[in-house]
C-alpha cells in the first residue's frame, strides 16, 4: 500500500466513524423522550405489581405445567381466592429440569415463595437446613386424615404437607404369562412364584424377557431394590438413624434374590424397560401410575394386569412411595395464609378432582383414597392397596450421599464385581462413615 492510499483509507474510516457516532449520540429528541417514557412506564408497572392492594399476596411455586392439569390448578386457585377474599395467590410454574436448583438458590438467598411444592426426596435437605416452616402444631388435628407424613418430617417435627402421592406396583403381561402356562388370574404371590414365572417367560424366545430390572441408572436403581429389601424385613438405617443395617441377613438375602431375578430379565434403563413392556417383550416391570397413562395413550390393546409387588412370603408386599408435598418457606411473612392455601389444595374434594383429571391413583387424603373413583377404574385399586404397604426412604440431611453409596453397592453386585454380601458390607461401612460426620 502506498502512503497515499493509507491516508485515503484513514480519511474514509474517520468519515465513517463520524457518521456512526452522530447516529448514536445525536439521537433525535423525540426518540429520547419515547425511550424515557417507556422506561418510566415499565417502572410504574413493576411497582404496581408489588403492592397492588391491601390483600395479602402469597406466592406458590408448583410443577404442574402440563396443559392437561394446569387449568385445574388455576381453577382451584381461583376458587380459593373467591372463598378467601383477603388472600391473592400468585402462581409460578417450575420445571423438573431446573426447579430444584431454583428452589435451593431462592432459599439460600433468603427469598423464595410462601408455598412451595417439593418432591418427597427433596424435603429433608430443606427441612434439616432450617428453610421450611415447622407446621407440627397447626396440622396436628389432620394427622389421621392424611397418609405418608414421614418424608415431610425431621426430628419428629412436620415440615410439609402430603399432597399427591405415588407408589410402584407390579405390571404383568397377561399374554406372555398365558403362553408360559399361567392362568388368567395368576399374580405372583411370593418371590418364588415371581422368579419361576420370570424364568418360564424367558424360555418363550430369545428376545422375550421375564423381569424388567433397572441397569446402573443413577437415582433410579435403588428405588427398585428397596421393595425387596423392605418386604424381607430389611432396613437401610436403624430406627435412630445412627447405624446402617445393609449388611444384615434380610438385606443380603434380598439383594441375592434381586440379582437372581435379573438373570431371567431384561436389564435396561427405566424408560427403555417401559418401552419393552409396551412392545410385549417383557413379562414384569415395576412402575408407577404414569405407565397406566402411557399404555392408555400408546397401546390400549396391551393385555396387561397389575398386582402387588410380591414379598418373600405371601402377603409380605412392600413398595417404594414418594410424592408431592406442599411446604411453607420459613422466611415467609404470610405463613397463615400459606397454610390456608395448602389446606384448601389438599382437601379431599380437591385431591379427588386432581386425581380424576390427571389420572393419578394415590391421593394423600384417606377420605379421597376411599372414594369410589378408585374402585371404579381398573388398576387404581392396586395402587391404593399397594400404598398401604409402601414406605419412603429415611429422612437424613446427608441422604443424597447415603443414596449414592447404596446404589454403588447394588451396582457392584449387579455387575458381578462383588458378591451381594461384600457389596452391602462395603456400602454399610461407607454409610456409617457418613452418619458419623
Amino acid at each position, binding site marked *: 500500500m502506498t502512503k497515499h492510499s493509507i491516508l485515503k483509507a484513514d480519511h474514509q474510516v474517520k468519515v465513517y466513524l463520524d457518521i456512526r457516532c452522530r447516529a448514536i*449520540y445525536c439521537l433525535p429528541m423525540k426518540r429520547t423522550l419515547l425511550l424515557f417514557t417507556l422506561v418510566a412506564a415499565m417502572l410504574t408497572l413493576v411497582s404496581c405489581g408489588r403492592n397492588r392492594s391491601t390483600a395479602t399476596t402469597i406466592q406458590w411455586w408448583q410443577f404442574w405445567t402440563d396443559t392437561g392439569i394446569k387449568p385445574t390448578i388455576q381453577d382451584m386457585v381461583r376458587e380459593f381466592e373467591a372463598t378467601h377474599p383477603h388472600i391473592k395467590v400468585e402462581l409460578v410454574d417450575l420445571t423438573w429440569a431446573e426447579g430444584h436448583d431454583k428452589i435451593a*438458590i431462592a432459599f439460600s438467598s433468603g427469598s423464595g415463595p410462601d408455598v412451595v411444592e417439593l418432591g418427597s426426596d427433596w424435603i429433608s435437605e430443606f427441612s434439616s437446613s432450617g428453610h421450611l416452616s415447622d407446621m407440627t402444631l397447626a396440622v396436628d388435628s389432620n394427622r389421621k386424615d392424611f397418609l405418608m407424613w414421614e418424608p415431610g418430617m425431621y426430628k419428629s417435627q412436620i415440615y410439609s404437607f402430603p399432597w399427591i402421592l405415588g407408589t410402584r406396583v407390579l405390571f404383568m403381561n397377561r399374554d406372555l404369562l398365558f403362553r408360559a402356562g399361567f392362568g388368567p388370574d395368576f399374580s405372583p404371590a411370593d418371590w418364588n412364584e415371581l422368579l419361576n414365572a420370570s424364568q418360564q417367560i424367558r424360555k418363550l424366545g430369545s428376545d422375550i424377557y421375564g423381569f424388567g430390572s433397572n441397569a446402573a441408572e443413577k437415582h433410579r436403581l435403588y428405588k427398585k431394590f428397596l421393595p425387596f429389601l423392605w418386604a424381607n424385613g430389611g432396613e437401610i438405617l436403624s430406627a435412630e438413624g445412627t447405624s446402617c443395617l445393609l449388611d444384615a441377613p434380610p438385606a443380603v438375602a434380598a439383594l441375592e434374590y434381586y440379582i437372581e431375578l435379573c438373570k431371567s430379565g431384561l*436389564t435396561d*434403563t427405566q424408560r427403555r424397560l417401559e418401552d419393552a413392556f409396551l412392545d410385549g417383550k417383557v413379562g414384569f416391570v415395576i412402575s408407577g401410575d404414569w405407565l397406566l397413562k402411557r399404555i392408555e395413550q400408546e397401546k390400549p390393546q396391551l393385555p396387561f394386569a397389575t398386582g402387588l409387588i410380591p414379598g418373600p412370603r405371601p402377603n409380605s408386599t412392600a413398595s417404594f412411595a414418594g410424592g408431592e408435598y406442599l411446604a411453607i418457606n420459613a422466611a415467609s411473612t404470610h405463613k397463615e395464609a400459606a397454610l390456608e392455601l395448602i389446606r384448601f389444595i389438599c382437601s379431599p374434594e380437591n385431591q379427588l378432582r386432581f386425581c380424576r383429571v390427571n389420572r393419578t391413583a394415590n391421593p394423600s387424603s384417606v377420605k379421597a383414597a376411599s372414594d369410589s373413583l378408585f374402585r371404579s377404574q381398573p388398576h387404581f385399586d392396586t395402587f391404593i392397596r399397594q400404598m398401604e404397604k409402601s414406605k419412603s426412604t429415611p429422612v437424613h440431611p446427608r441422604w*443424597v450421599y447415603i443414596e449414592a453409596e447404596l446404589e454403588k453397592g447394588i*451396582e457392584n453386585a449387579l*455387575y458381578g464385581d462383588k458378591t451381594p454380601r461384600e457389596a452391602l458390607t462395603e456400602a454399610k461401612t461407607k454409610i456409617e462413615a457418613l452418619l458419623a460426620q
Partner: protein
Amino acid sequence: MRYPGKGRGWLLFSPWILTFLLFWLFPLIYSFVLSLTDYRLLSTETHSLGLANYGKLLSDPDFQSALKNSFIFVFGTIPFTTVISLGMALLLNNRFRGRSFFRAAYFMPSITAMVVMALIFSNLYSRGGYLYLLAQMAGLNPPANGFLLSQKTALPAIMAMDIWIASGYYMLLFLGGLQSIPLELYEASRIAGASRWQQFRYVTLPLLKPMTLFIIVINSIKSFQVFTEIFVMTKGGPLNATLTGVYFVYENGLRRFDFGYASAAAYIVFVIIAVASALQFKFLKTEWTA
C-alpha cells in the same frame, strides 16, 4: 469534525466489561475462595478449611476415576479426531461434483444440539439399536445390555460418538487452513519435482501448523470439559466408568450443593487444562519451527 470524548467509548464498551467482571472474573475468583471453605448452598454457617478440600479430593477414589476417565477421553479422542478431520479436509479440498454437499453433510453433526445427538446415540447403542445390531452382525459380540450399560464399553462408546460429531467441525477449520496455503508453493514444488506425498509432507503439513495447534488445543479443552454426553447418556455410570472431571463437579456442586468441594474440584480441572494447553503451545511450536 468533533468526536465524542473518550469516556463515551468506555460507556459503549461497558456492557461487555461489566458482564465480564460480574459473570466471569468475579465467579472465577470467588469460587477459589469458596474452594477453601465448607460452603454448602443451604447451610447457614461456613467455615474456612484451608486446603483440606484439595487434600480430600486427591484421596477421593471417585475423583481419581473422574480424572482418569477425563484423560482417557482426551488422549483417546484427539488423535482420531485430528487425523480424521484432516483426512476429510484433504479429500474435500479437491474439486469434484457434490463437494459442497459432502462439506455440509460432514459439518451437520456439529451444529445439531448435543442433547439430541446423545439421545439418538443412546438408542443406537442400546440392545436392539442399529449400532448394536451392526456390531452383532460383524461378529463383535457386544455386551448383553448394550454398550452404555457395560463398564468396559460405555466410555469408548461415548468417545466414538464424540469423534464422529467433532470431526466435521475440525474438518471445516482444516479446510480454512488448506485454502489459505498459496497455490504458488504447490506449483513451485511440482516444478522442483516433488511427489504428491512430498508436497503434503513439506508444504501442506508445515503450513497447517498454526491451525493444527489451534485445533489440538481447543479440542483438548473441549474434551476435558466433556459433560452433556455424560449427563444425557450415562450420568457417570455404570460404576463410575464414565465419570469425568466436569461431571464430578456437577454432581457435587449442583446435586449435593457441596459448593466448597465442587469448587476445589473445578479448580483442579482448571489447572490441569491450563497446564496442558501451555505444554501443547510450547511443544508443538518448538518442534515445528525447528
